[in-house]
Every structure is written in C-alpha cells, then in structure tokens.
C-alpha cells in the first residue's frame, strides 16, 4: 500500500439547521480503493463536495500531496488531479463521445476546436482502458454502461491522482460492473487513489482495500476490507444490527386463486414473450440484473408503454389494458422505481397525492370534497405511519421513505388489489426499509397481491413467495421461495451470457 496522498482532518460543515459534517477525518493512499460507506444522509456526498470545492468547509484542513489546499470549484480540483465520477450521469446527449470527454478543455487550433485531435486522443484513451467505444458516436446512442465508462475515461484523462466514484454501479449491468472493476484494478496499478462510494456490500468486498464508515455526519471508523465481515460494516453504519433473514417457505396457500395472469406479453426488445401468474395474497419477486426487462414488463403490463401483443387476465377475465387508466380500472397500482418522476407530484400536498388516482370517490357534485379527502389522507398517514406534520404538507418536504408511503397510500385509496412495487426501497435508508417490508407483508395478509421488482438479492429472498427471474427481456425461470438460492437466481439471471 502506497503513501498517503490526501488527508482530510476535522472537516466541519453546517447548513442552516443541519450539522452535515461533524469533524470528519479521511485518509486516502496512493494505489488503493477506499470504500466510503454510510446510510443515506450520513454525509458521504457532502464530504466529497467539500473536497472538490462545491461546498466551502467551515473548519478543518485538507492536505493533498503534502500541501494544504482549498479548491474553489470543481475545475480547480480537476486541475490538481481530484476528479469525481458522478452518480447521475453528466453527459451531453447531443454531443459526441469525444466532445463530451474534452468538454471545457477542448484542443484548439487557433480559435478552431480541433475535433480530429480530440477523437484521436479519445481513441488512445479508450485503448489504454481497454474499452471499445467509438469517440465519434453521439453520446445518447450509447448504453448507460458505456456512458459510465466514458465518465471514468474522462476522469482518467484528467491525469487524475484521486478519482471519486459516487455510486458508479447503480445503473450498470453485471458484466458492465465487471468491466469497470477491470479498469479500476488497472488504475490501481498506476498508483491512482480511488474513493468508492457504494451501498452494495458485495462490490465493496470485491474491489476495495479499506472501508471508511460514516454515520450522521461523523466519522465512525476505518476497516481493512479483507479482515472484516459484512456484519462488521453494517453494524458500524447503522449502529444497530439488522437481521436479514430470508424467507424459507411461501406463506401463500397452494390453492390461492390466480388474480392476475399474463400470457405472451411482448413489448420491444426488453419484453419478449413473458408469461406469469400472480396469486391472491402473494408477493411475486421479479429478479434479474439491471436491464433485464423487469421494469419494462411492469410498464407494459400497466399500459404505461405500448405493448405489441399479449393477453392479460384479471380474476380469470380477459381485460384490455392500453393505457394506465385501463390498468387502474382493473385494480392495478404501480409504484415506480423513480418516485420523483413517476410517483408523486412533489409540489402538491400529501392529501392531494393520496387521492390522485381516485378523484371520482371524492367528488361532491362537481366539487372536490376536501373534508373527505383530508379524512382519508389522515387515515393513511396514521395507518402507514407516514412522518408528516399534517396532510397539507407538500410532499417535497418529506423524506424518501415517507414519499414512498404516500405513493402506497395513493393506491390503497384507489383500492388496488394488485400492486407493482418497482424497487420499493431504492434510495431509502435501512430503518425505513424495514418499515416498507412490514407494510408489504401486512398488505398481502389483507388479501392484496404484490409484484415486487428488486435488484437487491436480500430483498428478493426475504420478501418473495415466488420468484420470476428475467434476463435480457426474457423470462428465464420461476422458483418457489423454498427452492430459491442466491446462486440459482444468479445463474438464471445470467444464463444466456457466456
């Protein structure tokens, strides 16, 4: 392990009302991958923003290559060799790959931008990193994974000495992650220091050397990855032990009626001939890797995207679902993975969001019956233990988990019997996660049926009664929970990829 290249000591940062960082220490060495872990809101991103000059620290020192530094903006940090690969992709879709790579520091010939040289340099860079991307391709034509590679390549091209990865794998497929790891190992050999922010424990184990854990804006401790267990890390992160006990047996009786039957659903490349059944009171897990077509299947089923063919039966009756209205009328509710975009109207109140899908039940002639609306919203706030001062609160002010509860309340108000949970706990901290799980169990106990799409294996194994596995737009397997093992699922999810 190399010398220390970067030290942050006693970093303190307050925002009005929030003490975001409380004397945090961090130490990064040359040629290592340091995992930075912590629950949402632990202060990881804030710390990195302080480092790269997006935020100004209140106190503390940053020592980089032996000198005390304070960057005024990302540009200065970049020039010094500290680069962030962002979680949300910062690409310019209409420009080419090379143009993206060199944005802000184009090669010039007089006043003319030298696009040819940029393409050549980009090509060289990709060759060095062993990735196959055409620098002249328009960025938006690349897959998300390739776009992520471009981001990494861009970081490398800065002659970076420290690269910060902010949840880089969130949007990648398994094989893309593998490809990325190859690059990271390569960079390690070149003595580059890396900070790797991630929630995925398995990745941490595979790629990192040390783990620094933060909690509630404070530094908790640093562990050597090889020498610690998952539990050690989790304990440090949450300060309390989480039991991730998998379900062993389906809770659904064998003869439970089929409430939803989907046959030969086709919708583009991502949904090819998918068929499955959902029983009353069942949680049907949809497992698979990113880009396996699970969300697309759900959206096609829900009528959010057009489908090419396929029959849908609700309680044995064939139904036509051409748009979300039809689906909602059939008693289906959809909780999207991207709440802010597809789930809630953030600038509206809890009550307004709760009744969004079932306006007709709240009409008094042509007027909205606001008393009844408030009553129902109150009921669900209580039933779901949503943390909000009152139902007139704008949803934008609630935390992720509570926003998710508002979406659930919306579908419960609509009396939907079939609920599609698409990544129900993404971006939600561990405590709130458990609450959502409890809630799901309660819902099925009350006779609802749930389709749960999840990328987290523990979630799938813990919640599902049966599991459908998808891979590249096709259904590759269906398992009862009793026979499901992580390995079997992984196997099915990757079956076609050699």
């Amino acid at each position, binding site marked *: 392990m190399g010398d220390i290249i970067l030290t942050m000591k006693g970093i303190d940062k307050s925002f009005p009302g929030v003490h975001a960082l409380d004397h945090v220490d961090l130490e990064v060495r040359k040629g290592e991958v340091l995992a930075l872990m912590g629950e949402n809101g632990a202060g990881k991103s804030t710390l990195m923003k302080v480092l790269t000059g997006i935020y100004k620290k209140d106190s503390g020192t940053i020592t980089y290559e032996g000198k005390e530094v304070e960057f005024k903006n990302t540009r200065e940090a970049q020039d010094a060799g500290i680069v962030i690969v962002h979680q949300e992709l910062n690409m310019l879709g209409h420009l080419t790959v090379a143009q993206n790579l060199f944005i802000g520091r184009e090669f010039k010939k007089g006043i003319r931008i030298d696009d040819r040289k940029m393409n050549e340099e980009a090509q060289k860079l990709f060759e060095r990193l062993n990735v196959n991307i055409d620098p002249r391709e328009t960025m938006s034509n690349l897959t998300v994974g390739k776009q992520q590679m471009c981001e990494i390549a861009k970081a490398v091209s800065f002659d970076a000495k420290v690269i910060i990865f902010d949840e880089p794998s969130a949007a990648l497929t398994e094989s893309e992650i593998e490809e990325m790891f190859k690059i990271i190992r390569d960079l390690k050999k070149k003595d580059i220091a890396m900070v790797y922010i991630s929630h995925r424990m398995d990745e941490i184990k595979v790629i990192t050397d040390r783990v620094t854990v933060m909690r509630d804006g404070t530094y908790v401790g640093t562990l050597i990855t090889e020498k610690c267990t998952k539990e050690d890390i989790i304990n440090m992160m949450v300060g309390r032990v989480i039991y991730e006990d998998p379900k062993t047996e389906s809770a659904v009786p064998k003869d439970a009626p089929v409430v939803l039957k989907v046959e030969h659903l086709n919708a583009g490349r991502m949904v090819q001939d998918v068929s499955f059944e959902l029983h009353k009171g069942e949680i049907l897990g949809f497992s698979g890797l990113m880009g396996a077509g699970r969300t697309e299947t759900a959206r096609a089923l829900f009528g959010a995207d057009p489908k090419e063919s396929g029959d849908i039966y609700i309680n044995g009756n064939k139904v036509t679902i051409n748009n979300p*209205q039809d689906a909602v009328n059939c008693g289906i509710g959809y909780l999207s993975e991207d709440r802010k975009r597809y789930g*809630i*109207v*953030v*600038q*509206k109140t809890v009550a*307004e969001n709760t009744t969004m899908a079932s306006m007709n039940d709240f009409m008094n002639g042509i007027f*909205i019956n606001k008393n009844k609306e408030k009553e129902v919203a109150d009921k669900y706030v209580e039933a779901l233990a949503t943390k909000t001062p009152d139902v007139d609160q704008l949803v934008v002010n609630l935390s992720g988990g509570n926003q998710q509860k508002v979406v659930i309340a919306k579908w419960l108000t609509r009396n939907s019997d079939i609920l599609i949970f698409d990544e129900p706990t993404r971006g939600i901290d561990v405590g709130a996660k458990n609450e959502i799980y409890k809630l799901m169990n309660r819902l099925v106990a009350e006779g609802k049926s749930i389709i749960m799409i999840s990328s987290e294996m523990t979630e799938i194994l813990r919640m599902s009664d049966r599991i459908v596995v998808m891979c590249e737009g096709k259904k590759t397997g269906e398992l009862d929970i009793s026979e499901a093992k992580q390995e079997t699922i992984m196997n099915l999810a990757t079956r076609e990829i050699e």
Partner: protein
Amino acid sequence: MKVEKIKQNAFVKKVGFNRIVLIFVLLLMYLAFGVLTGGSFFGFSRISNTLNYVYFLGFLSLGVTFVIATGGIDFSIGPVMFCCSLVSGYCLTTYGVPMAISLVMSILIGVLFGFFNGYLVAYWKVPPFIVSMASMNIAKGIAAVFTKTQSVSWPQSTTADGWYRNFVSMNGIPIGLFIFLAVSVVCAVVLNKTKWGRYILCLGSNEEAVRLSGVNVKRWKMLAYIICGTLVGIASIFFVAAYTTVQPGYGDQYNNEAIAGCVMGGTSMAGGLASISGTVIGVIIISLLQQGILALGFTKEYQYIITGLIVIAAVYSDVSARRRKN
C-alpha cells in the same frame, strides 16, 4: 417553531403572502398616481372608465392562467380574440346573423381555437410555443380572409342591437365588473375545487406521475386550452362591447399584457402553480400602470418600457424566492 409562526398569522396564511404584497403594491401605485396627477386619478368615474376598457384583458389573463398552469404557453390569445370578433361580427353585419347568435359564435370560435391548440399540444405533443405561434398566424389569416381585410364595426349602443354593450356597463352600473368577478370566482372554483383544476395543476407539476396514476392527462391538458379558448371568446365580446371596432391582422400586443398580468399574480411559468386571485390583481396592476402612465402625460412608449421592467422585477423576486426555498 416554524409551525407556530404560521399559526400566528392565520390570516396571512389564508390570503397568501404574495397576494398581500400585490394588494399593497396596487394601493401604493394607486396612491402614487393619484398624488402625481393631482388627485384626478381618484374619482369613481375615472376608475369605472378605466375598468370598462380592460375587462377583455382580464378575461385573456384568466384564460392564459389555465394554460400556464399546465406548464404550457398560449401566444395566440390576442389574435384569436380578434378572430372571434371579426368572424362573428362580419356574420352579424354582412349576413344579418342575429346578435345573440353572433355572441355565441364568438365564444364558439374561441373554444374551437382552444380545442385546436389543446389537441396539438396534448395529443400530438407539439411544443405549446410553436402551436400558439402557428395558431396565431392561422387566426390572423382566417380573420382577414373571412372579412376580406376589412375592419368590422359592431353596432353602436343607440341601435337596436346595441344591447350587447350593456355587458360592460349599463347606465353607469359597472355590469362588466360584476361579470368579470363572477367569472373569476368560477375560474378560481374550477382551478381549486374541482377535479379539472386539480388535474390541470398536478399535470403542470409532474405530468408523468399523474398519467401513471391512471389519469387521462391528454384530456385534461386539452381541457386547459379549451377553457382558455372559451375565456378568449368571452374576452372578444368584452372587447367589442368596449371598442366596437376590430381590425384584422392585429391583436399580438394583448398577448404580452395578458401574460404579464398572469405572471405578476404569481403564476409560475414552470407550471403547477397558479392563482386566479393573483391573476386578477396582477391584471389590475398592469392596467392601472398603463392608465397611470398615460395620465401622467407620457406617451405609449414609456408604458411599454415600464411595464416590461416591472414584470421583470416581479418575476425575478418570484424566481429568487423560490430558489432560496430549494
């Protein structure tokens, strides 16, 4: 702590801080103009006079509020208003269509344009800006072709058909004011108390989320444009009732004023946030400003410049307030 503060000012919360500021500005302006013009600005006749000629602008502003609430924009309201009065007025004066039917026609033409705009925006997904640019041209063209590029004069009050002018004022009673306030109340109720308004506001804020809640967003979006068209049709009646004559090829200037009134009232161009009472106050501020500037003896040009600057100030305060919130 915060909660308590809000409770203390229940009145402020109910009326809304923005509106209180606006009303304050309104009064301040009124006083300032009154003093600067040596008191001639205070008289009742002056006010009712002023109002008679701006009702149409009020209706336009109300209409465009609905469209802006969806996050869209309607740039065609002025020319469409002229198209309504021109086509129906031409039928009235040339083909002898009865007055009552002509008035209904005015509104219907407005509705038709609203439908056209709404359909293109909602169902064909053409950007609202372009749609309204196109329909502005089309409205002007249709009006001019229909009337053979002649202006149309609606009947004078002394004629048998002149009763329509009573909509604005009858024997000094400001009927127009009552109608305008009544329509504003209806608009406010529609926007805040009905399903229509709820969906229009929600889809302005996050269309996809509303769609995935099983709501036919296209229909509600189109509805906003149709409501706008209807109000433009009504505005056309109040325009001719005040001015009697309309000429083809014009009307653009009212777009700016109507949109300015709406934005002054706190309706956000980003959609999802709209207030009818704000629009009403905003449009009164704009008209008062224009009247006041004229009363001070300035030419029209200064009125344009000052209106422009004021709207910039209003929007900037709004934008910066919201930025601080986030």
